[in-house]
Each structure stands twice: as C-alpha cells, then as structure tokens.
C-alpha cells in the first residue's frame, strides 16, 4: 500500500469541502501502522477512539461546524505526554499509571479538531537520541530499517515519514524533535523555551524541556504550532520576502560528515541564488555547550528520577539507568557554573542574530546511524554517536532560542540530511515565516519528505 504523505496544508481544504473523509484518513493511517510493524513507531494505537472521533468530525464538518485546518486530521502523540485514558509509559518498564486528563497541549490539539491515532515510541524517558533503548523495542528508521530513527522522539518522526499520521507531537530537551526529524527526513519545530506548557509531560531536564510539533512541511508545523498555542488557525506566508541567513562555522562545522557539509553548501548557494543573503557569523564560546548541557541535564534528570531509581532501578534500560545514576554525582557548584555560562551563551546567540534574520546550520552532523552503533566514522576519526547526535542542537535548548529542522534536498545517498534554522528569542512565528520562505530552496518544496533527491 502506498502511504499517504500529503501535507495537512493540502488535505485540510479537501476535508473542509467534504472531498476527503476524516474516517478515510484515519483508516489510511491505521492501515499503514499495520503494514509496517517492524518500524515499531507506536507504543499504543487508539484505533477505536480515533475512528469514533473521525466519524464525529465528519458529521460536524458536514453540518457546517468546521473547527479549522486540523479538524479531522490524524496526529500522533509521543508517549511522554498525557492523553486521557492512556498510560504515559515514557517507553519504560518503570510502572506508570493511566492519565485522567489530557496534557494542556493535547487538549488544545483536540479542541482544534485533531484526531489522536496513537502514542509513539521513544528513547526511554527521552534520555537518549537513538530510540533503541525502549521497553517496547527499538524504533527503526522507515527509510532504512537497519538504522536509527533518531531520538528521543523517534517514533513520531518514523510515523510521519511512513504515512502513519499527518502531524505529531514531540519533546525536545537537547534536540529530541530536531534530531529524529533530520534522521527521517521530516520537519520539526522546537519553539522558544516556555512558550508551550510542559504540564502533563514527563520531564527530563526541567529548564531545558520543550514541547513542539513535527510534520511534513513548514506550513504544517505552523498549523500545529498555532493550535498548540491555542491561537487562531490559518497560515499564509509571503514567500517574496528576502532574508539574511547567518552560518556559524566555528564549532558547528568542526566535526561534520561530507554529505551534510555538501547539503549546507547547496542550501547556501540556492538561498543566495533566490535573492537571500548568506554570510558567516560567529557564536562565541559555542565549544562550552556540551559541558553546560551535560551538567544541567544530568542534575535535573537525577532530581526527577531519584525516587524512581530508589524503587525501580532494575526496571530501567541499563544504559538509561547508568546515565541517570551519573547525574546524582553532579556537584551543586558545577550546576551553578553551568547556569552562569548559559547566560553567556544566550548573549552570544543573541549577538550572532543581531546581524542576520536566522542562523543556518546542520541539525545532525551525520546521517541516521546504524542501530546499536556506539561510534561512527567521520572523516578519518571514530566519533561517539551520542555526543555527535546532540552536538548541533543542544545549544538552543541551553539558550532557549526557537529552532526548526528541515530536510535538505541534497544527499549523496538514500539517507536524508537535516538542516536547522534558528530564530530570535520569542520570535517563533517569525522563524516559521523565514523557514517557509527558505523551504523551496532548502527542501525543494513540497513532497521532499523521506530523503534527498541526490
């Protein structure tokens, strides 16, 4: 069966006009979930409630009660987020209980008419970037099942790339929306820190956590983002506007696989040819980022998990457990040092953004790695996968700036290469406009999901 990889932007008008049935959309997604069990994108599939909600949506739309562009659209929720009547497992064997109510962000998506088809698999407790440490089995990349879908929101990206949903909810503490988006050739938005409530979401690092949309186009990200914010629906962008893109070379290009480097070069040239300006910029002290991030996330994760570790240590995946235990040894003085340096890094990103509208850089320095690989060859050096996966995304969790991952249309092989646009603090809608304007040059326009065109 051919998966339905249409964008919400394209399907919504058809749903509104009655030309496409929400019931058929849900059935198509359910069929695709059943057709690709090896991808293991979902922890739970909400077949009955989704079909019931779709039938209701169809009746409402026919009766003229149209809620907006998400009405009748099937979406998936990362199983780190509360959905009423389901357990939030966090992909762990640590006991969890059934949620009585939706997380606020889920409630807003439902209010906009979205239909939840299921809860997606992830790296256990969102504490990893490869989605292979899960009590429900590894998520496999639908483009090459021997490879990781990225993480921690790996199930959400895999579901989007294989037509199991039209939009998805992810969370991002060090890159967990943008990394799997880059690995699977889809789009992901990490909004500005604090913009969307993390209530009802299992925390990883409370000062680093973000909730955001994942989709198959920038326009779809915008529709989902607006609904998650509870703001008015509707998306129109002036693609004639021209922008200045700043490329931060130092640190961000130091460890980079050749195909990804080519993707940035290709995107820069295409943007310049379209009349945008592309120039180099400097983010001072970017090399501090991994140390600041590590001491922050470890200490904060240990805070949440300490009581669970006391009671259920053996229920965690060994790798996740040992990283959580490591957090219990971070000294208070070093956590404070990390906090002070976060401020300095935030100023450095703000300074870089003073001379441009958005930063342009890779989202992942490598294509999706093989499942289970601890290291990967970059140039002539073996590099640790975990550190590499986080290397280019975590700075913007540390600083809180909004960032979008989008698939580049350049790839030397069948695997996608993901780029990243970063906008000014508290300017997420503006970043979405800039990304929409750059989408044709970077991604080759609609229909680019699932890998580059070579």
């Amino acid at each position, binding site marked *: 069966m051919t998966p339905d990889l249409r964008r919400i932007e394209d399907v919504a008008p058809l749903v509104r006009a009655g030309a496409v049935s929400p019931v058929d959309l849900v059935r198509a997604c359910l069929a695709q979930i059943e057709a690709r069990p090896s991808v293991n994108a979902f922890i739970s599939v909400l077949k009955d409630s989704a079909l019931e909600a779709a039938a209701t949506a169809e009746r409402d739309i026919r009766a003229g009660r149209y809620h907006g562009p998400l009405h009748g659209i099937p979406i998936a929720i990362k199983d780190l987020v509360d959905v009423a009547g389901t357990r939030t497992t966090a992909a762990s064997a640590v006991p969890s209980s059934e949620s009585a109510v939706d997380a606020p962000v889920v409630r807003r998506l439902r209010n906009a008419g979205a239909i939840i088809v299921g809860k997606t698999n992830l790296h256990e407790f969102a504490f990893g970037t490869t989605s292979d440490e899960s009590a429900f089995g590894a998520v496999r990349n639908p483009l090459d099942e021997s490879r990781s879908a990225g993480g921690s929101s790996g199930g959400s990206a895999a579901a989007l790339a294989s037509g199991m949903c039209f939009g998805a909810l992810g969370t991002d503490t060090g890159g967990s929306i943008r990394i799997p988006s880059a690995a699977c050739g889809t789009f992901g938005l990490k909004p500005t820190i604090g913009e969307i409530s993390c209530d009802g979401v299992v925390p990883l690092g409370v000062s680093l956590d973000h909730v955001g949309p994942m989709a198959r186009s920038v326009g779809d990200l915008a529709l989902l983002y607006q609904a998650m914010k509870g703001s008015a629906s509707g998306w129109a962008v002036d693609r004639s506007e021209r922008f200045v893109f700043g490329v931060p070379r130092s640190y961000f290009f130091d460890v980079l696989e050749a195909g990804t480097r080519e993707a940035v070069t290709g995107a820069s040239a295409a943007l310049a040819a379209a009349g945008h300006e592309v120039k180099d910029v400097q983010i001072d*002290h970017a090399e501090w980022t991994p140390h600041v991030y590590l001491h922050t996330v470890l200490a904060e994760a240990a805070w949440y998990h300490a009581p669970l570790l006391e009671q259920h240590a053996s229920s965690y995946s060994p790798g996740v457990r040992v990283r959580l*235990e*490591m957090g219990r040894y971070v000294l208070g003085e070093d956590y404070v040092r990390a906090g002070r340096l976060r401020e300095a890094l935030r100023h450095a990103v703000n300074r870089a953004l003073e001379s441009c509208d958005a930063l342009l850089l890779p989202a992942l320095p490598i294509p999706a790695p093989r499942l289970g690989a601890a290291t990967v060859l970059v140039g002539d050096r073996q590099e640790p996968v975990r550190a590499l996966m986080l290397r280019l995304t975590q700075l913007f969790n540390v600083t809180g700036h909004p960032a979008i991952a989008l698939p580049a249309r350049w790839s030397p092989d069948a695997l996608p290469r993901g780029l990243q646009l970063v906008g000014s603090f508290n300017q997420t809608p503006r970043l979405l406009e800039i990304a929409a304007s750059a989408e044709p040059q970077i991604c080759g326009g609609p229909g680019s999901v699932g890998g580059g065109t070579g």
Partner: protein
Amino acid sequence: MTVETWLAAAQQDAEKRGLRELLPLLETLGRSTAALRAADEEHRRRAERDATPPSPHA
C-alpha cells in the same frame, strides 16, 4: 573540591553501590567538569576585565 578529589570519591561510592559500569562514565563526566570549570574561570576573568575601567596612564 577539586575534580580529582570529586572523581575519587564518586568512583569509590559507585563501587560501594555495585555500579561498576558507572566508573568510565564518571571519568567522562570528570573531564567535562574540568572543561566547565575552565570555561567558568575564563568567563569570570573576562567579566572582571570588562568591568575594570581603563587606566588613565594606559
């Protein structure tokens, strides 16, 4: 507490708790802590320098 003192104490505690697999990770964390402290020191020196008014004789 120096990083070396912290690392020795942390590794001893991890061994006592039967978490031998934690030992190499603590070494990695120790290297990162040393880098974090060096960055903090550099940041502090820079802030002090920026706050010091230039000498009129300079």
